[in-house]
């Protein structure tokens, strides 16, 4: 879907990205992560030409991005940023309708699309449709920001630290939304963050960057189980490294099929092991029941299986 070939980027005399090669496949949830100055935002913005690359070629849907006028390219690529940037003088619905309107959709189609998107982002249409951005909380604003980015059904969604300014609870719920939206829509998402937990939680592939170079690009569990070097290890952190390992594996992978009648609490097979461990600690128990979404018991998870 997006291919960087021998991309370099300099700002004046400063070389920010020396030689980048990266292919992002259709439907991938690709998270770019790195410390400040690692070039992650620059790389993201080169995709929609907010930053022009210095040399090399970037292909979008098989064609060089410079073969599109910037506006045409950008209307096919959703864009959501940390500071959200809703237009304060427009209602929520007018904000969401921006790109469809630029593309000349008819009014009925735009209205239908707004309704779908408000539902997708769990925003109450009756309450928010005619509200102005300043009447919304930070989390609600970013939901509208994501809806606006998705409005014209773009092939790709670019997100530049979209949840970085939100409180942990709101961030957690929006991360859950993104996972769901990615699963429901199958969009190609390129997401920039500096938060490793966020990257491991959301990504189908994590691209770790340092000084404009790719240090490691792999699935979350590969990154955790086989960090490429000390830089990656340092980035993963020492103290809660074990918990990060647990966070990328699900209960379903480790549970035993036996069903115990004694369980006091239960987790879902799709929950991660970190959450299951936390529940066991609260229960002061070395085991926890596993039930499916309908509530039927399907197995038991033992502490020894979690740590083995």
């Amino acid at each position, binding site marked *: 879907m997006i291919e960087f070939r021998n991309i370099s980027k300099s700002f004046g005399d400063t070389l920010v990205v020396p030689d980048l090669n990266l292919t992002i496949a259709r439907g991938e949830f690709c998270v770019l992560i790195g410390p400040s100055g690692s070039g992650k935002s620059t790389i993201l913005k080169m995709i929609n030409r907010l930053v022009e690359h210095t040399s090399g070629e970037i292909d979008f849907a098989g064609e060089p991005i410079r073969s599109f006028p910037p506006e045409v390219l950008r209307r096919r690529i959703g864009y959501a940023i940390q500071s959200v*940037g809703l237009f304060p003088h427009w209602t929520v619905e007018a904000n969401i309708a921006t790109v469809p309107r630029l593309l000349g959709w008819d009014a009925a189609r735009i209205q239908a699309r707004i309704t779908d998107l408000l539902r997708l982002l769990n925003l109450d249409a009756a309450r928010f449709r005619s509200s102005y951005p300043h009447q919304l909380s930070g989390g609600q604003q970013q939901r509208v920001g994501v809806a606006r980015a998705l409005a014209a059904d773009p092939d790709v969604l670019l997100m530049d630290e979209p949840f970085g300014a939100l409180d942990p609870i709101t961030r957690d719920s929006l991360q859950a939304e993104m996972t769901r939206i990615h699963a429901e829509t199958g969009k190609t998402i390129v997401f920039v963050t500096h938060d490793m937990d966020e990257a491991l939680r959301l990504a189908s592939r994590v691209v770790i960057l340092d000084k404009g170079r790719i240090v490691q690009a792999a699935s979350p569990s590969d990154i955790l189980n086989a960090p490429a070097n000390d830089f990656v290890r340092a980035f993963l952190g020492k103290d809660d490294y074990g918990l990060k390992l647990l966070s990328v594996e699900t209960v379903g992978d480790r549970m035993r099929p036996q069903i115990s009648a004694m369980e006091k609490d239960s987790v879902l097979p799709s929950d991660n092991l970190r959450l299951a461990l936390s529940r066991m600690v609260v229960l002061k128990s070395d085991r926890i029941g596993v039930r499916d979404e309908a509530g039927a018991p399907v197995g038991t998870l033992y502490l020894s299986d979690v740590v083995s």
Partner: protein
Amino acid sequence: MAVARPRRLGWPRFLAALAVFVTLLLVLPYSGPLFAALFPDLDRPLYQQQSFVSLVVAHLWLVVAAALTATVFGIGAGVFVTRPQGREFRRLIETLSAMGQTFPPVAVLALSVPVIGFGFWPAFIALALYGILPISENTIAGLESVDPAAKEAAEGIGMTGWQRLLQIELPLAAPIILAGVRTSVTINIGTAAIASTVGAISLGSPIIIGLNGNNIAYVIQGAVLVSGLAIVVDMGFGVLSQRIGQWKSGQA
């Protein structure tokens, strides 16, 4: 409710002030006996060279023509120097308009007379030049006050430069730009009175003639109408600026 109160009162207050002004304008021609009583020494206590209505029309015409010109050039200059291609002209434009502002309008009038002659045009040019600065300054300030995140988002989702300017930047800067136009117009309503010194017809005519001929009644008649006009127009701008910033109070 503290926010809603001026909104409710804006329109009625403006209409009331307008009604008072129009009444004053219509009654003034019949106020000869009043001024005769106040100033018994004057032979002609009521200004009658032109009707007061025609003076107000001429005055407004001068101010509106100059304000429209100043608005076009002021907003144009403000927009130009905030675009990438005009950025380097910003200091120049700011210096030029600040210099224009330090010239007293009387000096501009005096300088333009030998070039253009007497009448409407020198007055128009002085007022238009004088009115540009508050508008260009406020246009720059207004455009710079637009949230950079909104500008980045507008660009990132595929608006062209013109679309960003017309749909996002200017509407968001509008309240500040309007405040500049308001300042410009209010100052110029007063300044236009001086234009009568170079032969333009305005509400300054009775004032200038009154000062020359030691006729205080003329001066009062002109001054009352000029200040009344300034107040009414300023209140009109007040109503307009409430309408333009309405999204801030969250009502569509």
